[in-house]
């Protein structure tokens, strides 16, 4: 099995004034290609920090991170931006859609950043992914005209439209009711199954965790447990 991402002895500390606060204390984690992995743990356990490091949004204090076989250490901000552009998709807790763009334009945005100049090709890709997330008929709406669940579907479509190696979702259902949260998780699961895209998502909601095929629990910056669940394959 190919490795989508690997964290090796990753430490991360933050400075809070003059005090050094350790957020991660030696994380070792291998994520197989096509995994549907949940990172769970209480607030302050380091979930978001792991996702930020996997997303090349932050750099470790020590240790190495490899994504798609490439280490992110020492890359310039521009190279990191290009790396995120080509390899990573993001789904945020608060959806983070661009309110002045339509659903179609929001989903199209990553393709424009990739320099896909062929409008027809962009439209085909956007129409296809919007159809898959069930928003084909809402393409011309603005985000504020959609429900929370619909907005998160747009975010899923935006994350997947460029065919990333890895999709990172930081508490993707935290702002949704339980019914809608289940729908979003089911959608992400189906995308994982259909496209083989690796998903890593953080949560502290047991109902969301049950969708994962691998569950990594963090506590105080360390991996507390790493287990195969729901018949999923244990990668570690």
């Amino acid at each position, binding site marked *: 099995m190919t490795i989508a991402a690997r964290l090796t002895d990753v430490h991360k500390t933050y400075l809070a004034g003059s005090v050094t606060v350790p957020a991660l204390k030696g994380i070792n984690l291998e994520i197989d290609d096509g995994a549907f992995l949940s990172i769970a743990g209480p607030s302050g356990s380091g979930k978001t920090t792991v996702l*930020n490091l996997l*997303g090349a*949004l*932050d750099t470790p204090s020590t240790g190495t991170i490899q994504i798609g076989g490439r280490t992110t250490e020492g890359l310039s*901000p*521009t*190279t990191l*931006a*290009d*790396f*995120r*552009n*080509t*390899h*990573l998709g*993001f789904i*945020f807790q*608060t959806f*983070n859609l*661009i*309110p*002045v*763009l339509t659903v179609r334009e929001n989903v199209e*945005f*990553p393709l*424009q*950043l*990739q*320099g896909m*100049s062929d409008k027809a090709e962009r439209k085909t*890709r956007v129409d296809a*992914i919007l159809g898959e997330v069930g928003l084909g008929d809402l393409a011309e709406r603005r985000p504020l005209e959609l429900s929370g669940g619909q907005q998160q579907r747009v975010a899923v479509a*935006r994350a*997947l*439209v*460029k*065919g*990333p*190696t890895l999709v990172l979702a930081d508490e993707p259902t935290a702002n949704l009711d339980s019914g809608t949260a289940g729908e979003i998780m089911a959608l992400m699961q189906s995308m994982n199954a259909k*496209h083989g*895209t690796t998903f890593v998502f953080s949560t502290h909601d047991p109902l969301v965790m049950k969708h994962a095929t691998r569950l990594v629990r963090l506590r105080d910056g360390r991996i507390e447990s790493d287990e195969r669940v729901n018949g999923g394959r244990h990668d570690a």
Partner: protein
Amino acid sequence: MGAAMTPETIPGTLGPWATLRLGWRNLRRNRRRTWITATTVALAVLLVQAAMSLLIGIEQQSFNNLINYQTGHAKLYAAGYFENRDELPLEHALTDLSALEETVLSVGGVAAATPRIVFSAQLSNGVDQIACLGVGIDVTGSDTDVFRIPQTVVEGQYLRPSEEGLLLGSGLAELFGVSLGDWLTVLAKTQAGAYEAIDLEIVGVVGTGNPLIDQNSFLLPLEMARYILDMESGATELALRFATTANESATLQRLQGTFAESQEVEVKGWRDMEEDFMSLVKLKRVGQGIFLAIFVVLAVVGITNTILMAAFERTTEIGMMMAMGLRNAGIRRLFLAEGALTGLIGAAVGSVVGVAIIAYFAVQGIDISAMYGDMDIGYPVKDTIYPGMNVAVIVGSWLLTGVLAAIASLYPAARASRMQPVEALRHV
């Protein structure tokens, strides 16, 4: 799903049109703030265009005034006259006027020529005596081919041939307290250096708006000037008017070329004659330009604040865009576009209103006599001034404001682009 592209092939920024479109929509997020900022810019541009148009109008009217009443488009002088022109040296007079006229009128672009004698004189009403300029003009017809004096007669009438009378500048008439039918004594030195005096009747009063004429000059028939100065013939200058269709500088060059080899005659354009005034005009242009530029800069600085606020409000969104792979340069371009668009919109509004106001006053004119009376405003213009519409000024100030607005957005744009994505995403 398509395969991921390699980093080497991607721009990492939006294209120009997509950047402008997103910038435009972002401006509409907080319309009231955008319009307040744009209105400040609009007022600044309106002021700049109005002031520039007024300056252009005053300058053009001043130039026309000089040409119509004082200098013509060019003058021929006897060699040695121009460098000593402050002394009005009668010994450097043109002699063979007919031949000179024939020569200059054969030069393409020259429409008319007329001889004049300018001399220093003392005018007296028996009580007061004032030093002033006497101007002998050819009233048989040729002076009116070059100059527009008859249109400036505010009292009485224009001179008639061989008339023993004079046209007096309106300011001088007021100073002397004289009116039509009164007599003034003209005292002048003849060409040979002897003093000659003669009494002449005031047949008309001229008001040109040109202080040199109105405050300091009187006009009399050329023959009368020759009689006073004891000159049998000749003139101190041959003034020329160019055809309305002629290119001024090209015609002047042709004229100067015609007399390039001459040892007796030199040709001077009206700008050469009025070099002090032209220097003053340039100085005023620079002064006003600096003042207006400061004004626009102050207005445009408001854009810096607006973009700073917009960037602060959208910190999380900037983080999200960075997460998706938008490079720092793309963030900068987006905010520069928003600043430039705000400037261009404001400047466009200011220009539309400005053009309407300028167009109205360009036709109706602005009566400055009510504001300034007889006060010298530094330009030879009279009563009503007409702003000059200049497309280059309108378009130039519009585009310049856009550029300045983009420059004003540099700091907030750079600040936004320097954010760390993880910090930006954490922003609440």
